[in-house]
């Protein structure tokens, strides 16, 4: 395996006594898309700022394509901030000209393909663009340099559902061509669709980092209903495969992180009247993780 395209190790950022990012380690390999989820204030944007050198980490290391940040990093790295930064008095075409002069791998044909895809008029000045159009223009610029590393902060904010789908397709196309993508989103469904791995942050800490399909394979709810009151469950709550147990009258729900069949077997041995396994989607896994804390 070659070095990951994006690599964070023990990244920590403190502002005075406030720790915005707390010991985050994360790798994004070539060909991979990682979706970063977390409630507002979880530290996602600060993580991006550190990754891009806009903020100096208090501790930890950052490597892009296996090397620390340097001016040459930015020849192959594209970043789209949550609020697209464009020059208000310049047209979209002017921005493309700037990019043509600044980036070695700038691809004019690709840029015009993307303008058409997002229905953008190159003669429009940035100040005349709506929020969604600004995002689309920033994405056009980002993908026009044929980046190997993409860092996108809420890349579809303000876009209509069709253009949102285009953004996912652009990420998928880039990853299929060997790029590494890290993007944050509040829309769990986008991460579920486009990403192969997910990172969930809460209060500056990385609380989940996993391949999405592996998370879905492991995290289930086993629901058992008994004829009378729930019998003694023994040490089920401390079973390492179990995240937590909820009891309600004659019903037990066990949330598992691994080997749900094994946990179901333990419950089945207590002779429930009924038992079933419920699959959890990423939104439910996310809500569980954020309300639960670390696992």
């Amino acid at each position, binding site marked *: 395996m070659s070095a990951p395209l994006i690599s964070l190790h023990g990244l920590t950022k403190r502002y005075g006594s406030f720790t915005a990012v707390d010991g985050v380690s994360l790798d994004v390999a070539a*060909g*991979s*898309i990682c979706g970063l989820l977390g409630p507002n204030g979880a530290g996602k944007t600060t993580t991006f700022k550190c990754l891009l050198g806009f903020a100096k980490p208090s501790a930890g290391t950052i490597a892009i394509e296996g090397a620390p940040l340097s001016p040459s990093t930015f020849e192959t790295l594209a970043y789209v901030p949550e609020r697209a930064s464009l020059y208000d008095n310049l047209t979209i075409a002017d921005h493309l000209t700037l990019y043509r002069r600044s980036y070695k791998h700038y691809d004019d044909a690709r840029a015009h393909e993307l303008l058409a895809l997002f229905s953008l008029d190159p003669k429009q000045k940035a100040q005349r663009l709506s929020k969604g159009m600004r995002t689309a223009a920033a994405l056009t610029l980002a993908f026009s340099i044929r980046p190997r590393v993409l860092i996108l902060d809420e890349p579809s904010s303000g876009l209509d559902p069709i253009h949102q*789908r285009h953004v*996912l*397709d652009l990420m*998928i*196309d880039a*990853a*299929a*061509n060997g790029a590494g993508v890290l993007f944050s989103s509040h829309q769990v*469904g986008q991460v*579920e*669709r*486009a*990403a*192969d791995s997910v990172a969930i942050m809460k209060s500056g800490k990385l609380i989940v980092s996993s391949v*999405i*399909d*592996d998370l*879905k*394979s492991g995290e*289930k709810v086993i629901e058992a*209903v008994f004829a009378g009151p729930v019998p003694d469950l023994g040490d089920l709550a401390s079973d390492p495969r179990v995240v937590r147990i909820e009891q309600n009258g004659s019903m037990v729900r066990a949330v598992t992180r691994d080997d749900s069949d094994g946990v179901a077997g333990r419950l089945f041995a207590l002779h*429930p*009247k*009924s*038992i*079933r396994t*419920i*699959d*959890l*989607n*990423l*939104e*439910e896994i996310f809500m569980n993780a954020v309300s639960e804390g670390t696992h």
Partner: protein
Amino acid sequence: MPTIFTVDPRSGVPLYVQLTEQIKRAIALGMLAPGEQLPTVKALALELTVNPNTVARVYRELERDGVIDTSPGRGSFVRGDVAGSEARRAVADVARAAFEIAVREAKSLGLSREETLELTARTIARWYETETESQ
């Protein structure tokens, strides 16, 4: 290849499991013929708007199960020799799992063995007769 797959990323069933099952089913039903070429990982990922690594994982599973052959530079093909039987077996696995769940559900809803047997017989009569009539 026509669009014959639909995956639901919002489901709790892992995407690679959904897509692997669907491709096996398509082969068993003859929608994908022996020797037929599958789309590239990138093409299928873009067609379904799902992650390319997920599609690559599906192709690895299918290769491991002996359902497709992948040769570097040429692409992935439905196996000509064993594809039919391998895919049939795979589909039988899917059907067995679904049947298992149905019977378990019947039991946990309090149906007796006899009631479940009768229900099974009635269901078989309904579906298999319909099939004979329409042929």
